[in-house]
């Protein structure tokens, strides 16, 4: 995977602007970002399949909004901001503390970090994060069972105790619209698995149980990773390429990065600047469009191009009808 800094030299050679006289590096990087987004939108080729731990291991939890500016990583805003007093409270009865009545009883424990929910019945949904680059989620699995998505309102309409209900998940829903924080319904028991030596959580493939084949030279061999799915979330999702820094690697493999370069060149020659050359803009636009067609063709071939035969192996008969309760042994 190439980064912008690695391909900048080639782009500038084709622009005939090696010294950044006409196009600045920042300009070209913006075009690089836009070309990525355009190609990802037009051809759904970037699909990732990853396993994530449940619940998400946030880097930090915070209570007041102003705290977030001093923190980094995946953040979780815990508890509730009580607007009347501009304070943060854990339980709903705290808002009625100054009244004569005792206030509503809660359904379970409240926590600051989601992993604390392992030690009691949680009164609120235990959250998990969708990957930052995830667009549409095509397939979602919890503990090796495929489940679908619902809206929170749909879940609440069915079950008034949905926030504290525990059991085997049957669906997942967003806690905050437009945000990456979601929850499972019903909430499964949280399983802590101590990381043993040799288990590595890696951004490249979820939980890697076994890796083999990479030699010291780094340019030969084959890396195989087996993805663990037990008690974990597994998602197959479309990737929205978000490249914040110039040294961020492109999610496209090197053979496809060239089409991104064509998009950058089209934007550069088409910008209203001293380098505006409509004929070259049209040429690189044509190359980019040809690249889009090539990517679509590759996507079709990946699904249809294979050695076919009449008939095939019989699929094991699936278990139909209602499933056994959770405490029964797995099939």
């Amino acid at each position, binding site marked *: 995977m190439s980064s912008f800094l690695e391909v900048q030299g080639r782009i500038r050679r084709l622009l005939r602007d090696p010294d950044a006289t006409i196009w600045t590096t920042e300009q070209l990087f913006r075009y690089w970002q836009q070309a990525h987004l355009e190609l990802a939108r037009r051809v759904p080729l970037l*699909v990732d399949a990853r396993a994530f731990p449940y619940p998400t291991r946030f880097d930090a939890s915070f209570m007041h909004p102003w705290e977030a500016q001093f923190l980094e990583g995946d953040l979780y805003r815990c508890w509730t901001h009580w607007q009347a007093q501009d304070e943060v409270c854990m339980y709903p009865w705290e808002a009625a503390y100054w009244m004569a009545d005792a206030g509503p009883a809660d359904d379970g424990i409240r926590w600051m970090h989601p992993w604390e929910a392992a030690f009691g019945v949680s009164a609120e949904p235990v959250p998990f994060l969708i990957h930052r680059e995830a667009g549409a989620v095509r397939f979602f699995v919890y503990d090796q069972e495929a489940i679908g998505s619902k809206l929170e309102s749909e879940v609440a309409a069915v079950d008034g105790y949905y926030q504290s209900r525990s059991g085997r998940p049957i669906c997942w829903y967003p806690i905050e619209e437009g945000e990456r924080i979601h929850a499972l319904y019903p909430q499964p028991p949280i399983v802590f698995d101590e990381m043993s030596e040799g288990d590595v959580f890696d951004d490249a493939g979820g939980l890697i149980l076994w890796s083999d084949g990479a030699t010291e030279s780094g*340019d030969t061999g*084959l890396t195989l990773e087996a993805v663990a799915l037990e008690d974990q979330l597994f998602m*197959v999702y479309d990737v929205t390429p978000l490249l914040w820094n110039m040294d961020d690697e492109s999610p496209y493999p090197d053979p496809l990065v060239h089409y991104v370069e064509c998009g950058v060149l089209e934007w550069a020659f088409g910008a209203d600047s001293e380098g505006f050359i409509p004929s070259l803009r049209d040429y690189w636009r044509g190359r980019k469009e040809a690249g889009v*067609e090539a990517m679509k063709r590759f996507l079709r071939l990946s699904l249809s191009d294979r050695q076919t035969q009449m008939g095939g*192996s019989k699929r094991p008969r699936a278990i139909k009808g209602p499933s056994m309760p959770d405490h029964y042994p797995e099939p």
Partner: protein
Amino acid sequence: MNAIERLTLEWIGESTTAPDVYTDDATGMAPIRDSINHAIQELCLLTRSFVRTFHLPMLTDRSIYRIVPRRDFWGYPLEVWDRGNHRKLTQTSLAVLAAHDRRFLWRSGTRPSEYFPLGLSALGIFPKPSASGSVLEIRAVMVPKAYTADTDPIHLRDAYQRAAAWYAVSEFCAGRGDAKRASEAWAQYVEVAGLQFMAPGQADRLFMMGAPPDWRRRE
């Protein structure tokens, strides 16, 4: 220099015996080599020119595997063969399996029957193996990594090597600012490689034998 580089230099008017600009070394030939590598990768992506066989050892209760070749780029699987059980696996998808049984990932067995590709580098097996040790033989379309020396093998069928040269000529002309010649060379590349789908104008041509005697509009 290899045959494709020599052909490219001839077509752009550079001497192949004593080149002035694109000298026969890694630095001088880098721009030409860059374009030829892109052409080779694009042609391999679309024409199944480069197929390799991998062996995937399966682990107990693991159904999803991520395959990352270090040398080349993974395209897609063409055939998955279970040597131990002497049978070929059929391709399926997550949606089909989940529609049949949403707990298909729980199922395990000694004889995998189907596989499903996931994204650009992952592969799933159904049912997951109940014991380690079995090996799947996967024939996959690959995209070769860029070659850096003229002695490196070219993973491209001979029929497409002229097309790769036209691709390089097109980028050379575009790099000089000559969009017209670059477009003409690009059209030649598409024609020679037989990839008219990438340039719809090419595919829309209507062929006819001869011409009607009075095809000119009468004044």
